[in-house]
């Protein structure tokens, strides 16, 4: 289990990550996103439609005991992870859309996550000691909005500070995951060695299947390929550290240890699978960008907005 100090450190790092997320935003970005709300709405559908259902389905299909089931359901219900933005950046996807999806899903999370969690916990028939109280989740999320707003302000105040914090926030997203792995894995080597293959399948599958379904749903809803790739990454990448934080604030002792298994393994594997996917997407985008730079203005002009 995480020591109180580690839990505090985790909370602090989450705050910096949210600061970074804020620093990547301008109010113009929100306006741009809502000029074509389809992208954000499709993203939300993937985030809160596909992922929680996928988490629940995995828990049921793999016949998980309550401690694992709550882990994978919680993971599915989480908002988009801020690391998705750094992957979107490096994969040269629609960064603005990625940032927007992360921000909007994080804002919506205050209401959506408690409701979804409640619903799927009920559906899975989890015993009461494994249920995460909705108010816990709402509180944590509400507190994290404060650094986000500060971040938006910092970027307006000084672009150098904004860009630096944005990068730090992004990298910290990866650092937190490393921190979790380093502090958790050695203490649970025994547990990992005896962990059933189905747990590995669930933790890798949640991310990879999520990306796949996200991509096809986005294409189905008429998003262009580049935006669909962004949505795919965004859908598959959940906010793992946030799940860990919520678990540590809700459970204690051995129970915490067991519930943490899935969020931590998920966080580990999502970094690996996202890296592979990012390199692939980057190559595709490079090719497309070159073509688009040279594209000619359509002969028939669209009316200006």
């Amino acid at each position, binding site marked *: 289990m995480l020591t109180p100090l580690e839990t505090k450190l985790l909370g602090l790092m989450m705050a910096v990550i949210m600061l970074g997320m804020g620093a990547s935003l*301008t109010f*113009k970005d929100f*306006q*741009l996103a809502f*000029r*074509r709300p389809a992208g954000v709405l499709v993203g939300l559908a993937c985030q809160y439609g596909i992922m929680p259902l996928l988490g629940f389905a995995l828990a049921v299909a793999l016949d998980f005991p309550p401690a694992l089931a709550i882990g994978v359901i919680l993971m599915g219900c989480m908002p988009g992870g801020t690391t998705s933005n750094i992957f979107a950046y*490096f994969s040269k996807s629609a960064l*603005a859309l990625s940032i927007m999806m992360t921000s909007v899903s994080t804002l919506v999370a205050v209401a959506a996550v408690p409701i979804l969690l409640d619903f799927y916990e009920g559906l899975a028939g989890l015993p009461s000691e494994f249920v995460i109280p909705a108010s816990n989740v709402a509180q944590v999320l509400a507190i994290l909005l404060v650094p986000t707003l500060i971040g938006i302000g910092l*970027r307006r105040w000084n*672009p*150098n500070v*904004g*860009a*630096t914090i*944005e*990068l730090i926030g992004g990298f910290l997203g990866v650092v937190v995951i490393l921190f979790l792995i380093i502090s958790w894995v050695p203490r649970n080597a025994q547990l990992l060695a005896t962990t059933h293959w189905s747990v590995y399948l669930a933790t890798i599958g949640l991310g990879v299947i999520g990306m796949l379904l996200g991509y096809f749903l986005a294409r189905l809803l008429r998003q262009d390929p580049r935006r669909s790739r962004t949505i795919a990454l965004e859908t598959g990448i959940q906010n793992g550290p946030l799940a860990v934080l919520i678990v540590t604030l809700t459970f204690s002792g051995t129970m915490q240890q067991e519930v943490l298994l899935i969020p931590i393994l998920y966080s580990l594997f999502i970094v690996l699978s996202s890296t592979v996917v990012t390199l692939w997407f980057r190559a595709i985008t490079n090719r497309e*960008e070159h073509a*688009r*730079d*040279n*594209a*000619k*203005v*359509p*002969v028939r*002009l669209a009316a*200006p*907005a």
Partner: protein
Amino acid sequence: MNHSTSPYGLQPWLAAYGEHIPREAPAPAHAHLADFVRGAAQRYATQTAFTTCMPNGMHGSLSYAQVDALSDDFAVYLREIVGLAAGSRVAVQMPNCLAYPVVAFGVFKAGCVLVNTNPLYTPIEMEHQFADSGAEALVIVDMFANKLEGVLPRTSIRKVILAEVPQFFSAVPRAVIRGVMKVWNRTLPSVRVPHVRLAEALSEGRGLREARRIDPGAYAAGQGADSLALLQYTGGTTGRAKGAMLTHGNLLANLEQARAMGRSHLEDGREVILTALPLYHIFAFTFNLLAFWGAGARNVLVPSPRPIGNLQRAFDNYRITWVSGVNTLFNALLNEEWFTAFPPRHLKAAVAGGAALQSAVAERWQRVTGTRIAEGYGLTETSPVVSFNPLAGVAKPDSIGIPAPGTEVRLVDDEGHDVPLGTPGELIVRGPQVMQGYWQQPDESAKVLREGWLYTGDVAVMDEQGYFKIVDRKKDMILVSGFNVYPNEVEDAIAQMDAVLEVAVVGVPDAKSGEAVRAFVVSQDPGLTEEAVRAHAKRLLTDYKVPRSIEFRTELPKTPIGKILRKDLRDEARRAATAR
């Protein structure tokens, strides 16, 4: 023909100058560029002169006074420590960044000659340009310095100074940018030739300047309007790049001419110009760098405008009032939602040069931004501005506008006689901006410079108001069984097809007709056939202009600023023909 009765001698364009453009450009107030640099630095000392804006919004800035002091330091370094003499050539090879103006102005202050060099050059091109110019020192961006190893021994370069893109940024952003370049982009190679970092060179120069109380003003004291300032290499259509010799007088005159053309939209000390075109290119060099330095503007430098999203933060964070570009740049901006949804609110004017501006792009720009793109015309050999569409008053689509004040323009036939109004003829230019000749190429110079007139090789027509329209390059003209075919006309016709992304038309040797028209087409529709293109061309063009052969390509060869290189396609076609 008598000048005063020729349509060109009458200079009908003067009537289109209106109230804003003076009939004569003001005479340069300075004897040479070093004085010019100092003059503006004194006037606008505390104002921001340059800001480099990176794609992620990180930025660094220098004030007029800082640029002045740093370029003094660099002049002292070149003269006292490298030991250059007045007139020595210094090659500069870097993308847009804060180091560029410091170094370029430092070269002028040292009384040396600047040799602008494209950072994307191959080692072979670099070697040619360094050896030909006889450059003794080179300032190169570290990103490309790994190309130097094989090059240096065959040149007279004895000092290599390394600049960097985030030069003069504050410590944290600089470290972050260099970290990303090194680790993620891998664009910082290790440099194995002996070199000194620009920051060191500047501090050595400053140390010496202070210790010995050197007045760098003395270095350029002997220089005047006729002294050589810049060797600006130009591809030309045959053989290797030639260095156009531009004097202090040429550049000072041309920047005044450019300012005169833009006067209606220029407020000294208050403009913010976006420089996305490379400063090593003559258009951005004279227009963005020199003219706007003189106007006390803030110059926002973007190291690379590709992908076009790199410009987003510059438009977000700065109150851009002017932008210069080429057709491809404006086109790319108009394809971006962030640009069309939030067009720059303070924009007053945009100017285009380098290549023909498509009317669809010009129209859409006007509709999106509410400002005009004034299309102009110029050549490396003319520093570069020859003509512009006026920003206030009548602008004509597809026209290169009217000659700048103090510029004489005529259209002549092969014998050098003026052609009648409305008839195509070779455009020739005389004025204070015309170069002295090509560096160490008297024969080549004599071919283009006759009695003070520069023969541009461009074929144009003039209308009654004195507006010119480029028909084509003389050298690109295709002679099909004795008929003139202008590639531009054929390209425009083919480009009207929606399935055609880009097209280039050249003449290839043909046993029957002497030359035949060949079109190279980049299609954006895999279903497009040769027959469809030819059928389309037949509807719009007389038979002899319709391409005999059509070749599909995935891309066309282009210059760094996006001009299609017909020459390369023609050479390729000729080689293929002789090989057969």
